[in-house]
């Protein structure tokens, strides 16, 4: 059985991450894609890279008091966008 706390997503090799206050800058050094995340986006990405996606969404729903369906949709859209830009990828299981 896999460790339930293993995150579903990670930053690919060659992606530079830098905090700017409580926001975040992501830069793919290979494609030169630059992405800036506001405080909420940075928080979402931080949680997604520290816990499985369903667990992260559950925690976010608790902390942000938002409609779960809306939040789930927003998170999946953000993940898709960052994945397409090469700034997030599914975490490979060893």
């Amino acid at each position, binding site marked *: 059985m896999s460790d339930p706390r293993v995150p579903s997503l990670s930053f690919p090799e*060659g992606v*530079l991450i*830098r*905090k*700017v*206050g409580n*926001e*975040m*800058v992501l*830069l793919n*050094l*290979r494609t*030169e894609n*630059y992405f*800036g*995340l*506001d*405080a909420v986006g940075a928080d979402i990405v931080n949680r997604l890279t520290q816990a499985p996606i369903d667990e992260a969404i559950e925690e976010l729903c608790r902390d942000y008091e938002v409609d779960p369906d809306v939040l789930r949709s927003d998170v999946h859209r953000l993940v898709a966008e960052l994945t397409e830009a090469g700034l997030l990828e599914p975490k490979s299981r060893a």
Partner: protein
Amino acid sequence: MSDIEWPVSVARGLKVAQRESGLSEAECDYRVVEATRVALPTSAGLEALTREGLLWRRSWVSPDRLVLDFIGVAVVEVRSPEGSIAFDRTLDPETEQHLLLDHVLPMILAWQGEIVVHGAVLGCGDKAAMLVGPSGAGKSTLTAFAGAKGWTIAGDDGAVLGLESQMTVEPTYPTVRLSPDALRLLDISSDDASSVAGKYRLPLAGAKSDRQQRRALSLVAILNAVPAGRAATFTRLRGVEAHAALFGGTIHADLRQAEMVSHVVGGLARVAAEVSVGRLAVPRGRAGLAAAERVLRQEMGGT
């Protein structure tokens, strides 16, 4: 040949500046050598595009070699630690000077790990404002106008950031280059200016040491030209918005070297956190320049 003055001390030895400064070759970090064949690297270079999407430069970086292919103009090879700059052909002095000072010098500085922004530097006492924007944004025109209003023109093209305990800025070299349209707008004669790549390099007033002084960076204005008659405004940017605007105006020697890029990204994060960064709307026309200069002065007064 115009009265070119000494560029910032980090990259010295460019032929034109050397002659004007009176330094010997032995005192210079780099010197221009005889034209020679330059082998282009086989790997894909970092491409620079115009706003219209046209490729105008490719560059390649390695620890001891920087190659710049100015498409259709010349290929330049910079070698370190030999400290040589070689063109692949002999150019007229005006074009060579322009490439050296306006393009090669900023890239050498970025290659050496400096944070170089495509920006003008205006001094106000021991503080400075940096005007950021691509070619054609109006940096030089506003810089020249501000100079006539009492600001010290440190430079209008490249700015080197210092990450000491207080953020500082100095120009890559002291210059103002204006288009013929800008000269007419500002009612400046080209009689004392030297022609450089379609523009005119103006002689700068005041003491050389004053222009070359490294100043505390107090304000960054990202220029945004707006139609005449609109208000000149400064809209503060914060966090990643400020960082993104700065990153877009930074000259990168190589975006693929993690350590180099990390240093730049981190340095710009400090600017975003410690310096007032904002969009300066500059209305077209002389009245617009006057309004923008007043806004700049007001913002500087508050820093």
